[in-house]
């Protein structure tokens, strides 16, 4: 069933349109930065962007930082919000369930598919970011990852080898994927509650916007550690020397917490639901 769902995801034109759009903004940023050579002052703007003028190998991370706060979660909310509600809308949900596909099994397959979508998206964004970085910002060919010479500098200013950059980039991709678990499971929960895919997606995005607003509000200080968007950009810490694990670990724990709660709620709601679509 998981294979069928992933096949459905990959055969949908919309999946690729979403990924293409997610790549458009970082590419535009790369072009603008390379043409004007005006980067944001260090410490402002998206993470890594000030660094990419001198080091194009960090551009994949700058690209992720650009899409992470808004574009990526919207894409995830759309795909996950569509999961059940979209099948209900086309009427295919009833035919899946009488195949029969178990309801818990279907929820699981949909969750896995959303995670696959996120992973696919971040890998492509990072990959395109690398290529774009080399074209517009790079000087000469990239050093092979195995070379132990100094290839990049960490955010802390110390040197990182090419292998270290590759390793930490992979860690960052994993972290960004995990960061999307909370919103994915919430959108899926909403998707089991309504027959409108758009409503489910918007509900999940609304939740994230609320989280972002509360993060900027000092009066909500007590809630800050629990807000789902709190640690999203903590993957920057993976590029400090030594790696600053605290926020990364907290971010993963928080996302897994949201994921488990929302996924169980989605299952509980869907397991006994009357399918009238």
């Amino acid at each position, binding site marked *: *069933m998981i294979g069928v769902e992933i*096949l459905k995801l990959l055969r949908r034109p919309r999946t690729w349109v979403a990924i293409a759009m997610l790549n458009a903004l970082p590419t535009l940023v790369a072009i603008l930065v390379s043409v004007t050579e005006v980067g944001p002052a260090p410490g402002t703007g998206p993470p890594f962007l000030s660094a990419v003028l001198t080091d194009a190998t960090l551009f994949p991370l700058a690209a992720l930082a650009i899409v992470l706060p808004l574009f990526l979660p919207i894409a995830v909310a759309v795909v996950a919000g569509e999961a059940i509600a979209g099948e209900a809308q086309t*009427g295919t949900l009833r035919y*899946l*369930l*009488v195949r*029969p596909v178990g309801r818990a099994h279907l929820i699981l397959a949909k969750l896995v598919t959303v995670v696959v979508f996120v992973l696919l998206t971040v890998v492509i964004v990072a990959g395109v970011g690398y290529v774009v970085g080399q074209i517009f910002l790079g000087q000469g060919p990239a050093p092979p990852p195995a070379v132990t010479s100094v290839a990049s500098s960490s955010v802390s200013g110390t040197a990182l080898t090419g292998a270290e950059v590759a390793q930490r980039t992979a860690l960052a991709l994993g972290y960004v994927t995990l960061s999307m678990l909370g919103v994915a499971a919430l959108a899926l929960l909403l998707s089991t509650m309504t027959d409108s895919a758009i409503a489910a997606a918007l509900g999940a995005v609304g939740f994230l916007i609320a989280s972002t607003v509360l993060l900027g509000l000092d009066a909500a200080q007590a809630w800050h550690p629990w807000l789902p968007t709190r640690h999203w950009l903590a993957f920057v810490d993976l590029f400090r020397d030594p790696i600053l694990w605290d926020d990364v670990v907290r971010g993963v724990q928080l996302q897994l917490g949201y994921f488990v709660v929302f996924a169980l709620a989605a299952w509980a709601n869907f397991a006994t639901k*009357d*399918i009238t679509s």
Partner: protein
Amino acid sequence: MIRTHELTKRFGRVTAVDRVDLDVREGDVYGFLGANGSGKTTTVRMLLGLVLATSGTIEVMGRPMPRSGRSVLPQVGALVEGPAAYPHLSGRANLALLEAAGRGTRRRGRRQRIAETLAQVGLDPDDRRGVRTYSLGMRQRLGLAAALLRRPRLLVLDEPTNGLDPHGIHEVRDLLAELRAGGTTVFLSSHLLAEVEQVCSRVGVLDQGRLVVQDQLDALRGPTGRTVVHTPDTDLARSLLDGRESATSGQRLVVSDPDVPHLVHRLVAGGVRVHEVAPERRTLEQVVLQASAGAGDRHAGAASPPAVESGAS
């Protein structure tokens, strides 16, 4: 094959299905009749485990539903409230996805099975166009193909001829006859009396959530004990029948006497010209209308006396 006991579904304060006892036997083509909103679709959805009953029990192939859905449903083909497909994929790709979903799928021979089933319902297996370009009739055929794909023992069809032209309806009728001959039990939900009358062996009628009639079609349409006489000489005929005629309209007399040969003899001997003399039978339409009219009284339905007006000769 399907057996329900006191099956009831309430949505909030509305009782959609009210203590229904269905009895569908193996090999039946069972016509499930009822007006729109009578609870047909809700009943079908409960049989398939899509909607959960408020109370009552369901057995399909001798096993409780929805608990045994995992073992029962692979042997059931269903078309529920219209076909559905992913619009950007071809009919063939849709069937392939559906076939790969869930348990008990055999990878071997899948392509061939899909091509055969598409041909069986009159669709071109090599059509690469997306389903979004399909006409209503083609979608309906694809829905039928999806239901037939696993060669089910029980076929649950909800309004299968919806959107089909007369030619297509005829094909579906032939298909059902073929399936029945092959031993498939068919549960056909419809509001089209003619459709049910032509293909079904057994009939259940749902009215406002209640099953008001359930019997063999032949028994329901049995002779009423009266005879219909078509004659241009109505006045003369009436005088010969000394008050036994119960209704006259135009050249048509209804006589309260089942003895056709005796009547013919009497009328002809009396000089009446006769077009046709035949036992009166109730049409399914009469059965349904009458059962629905008597639904207020639970025990009305088939047991009440036949309607006064006309029957086919």
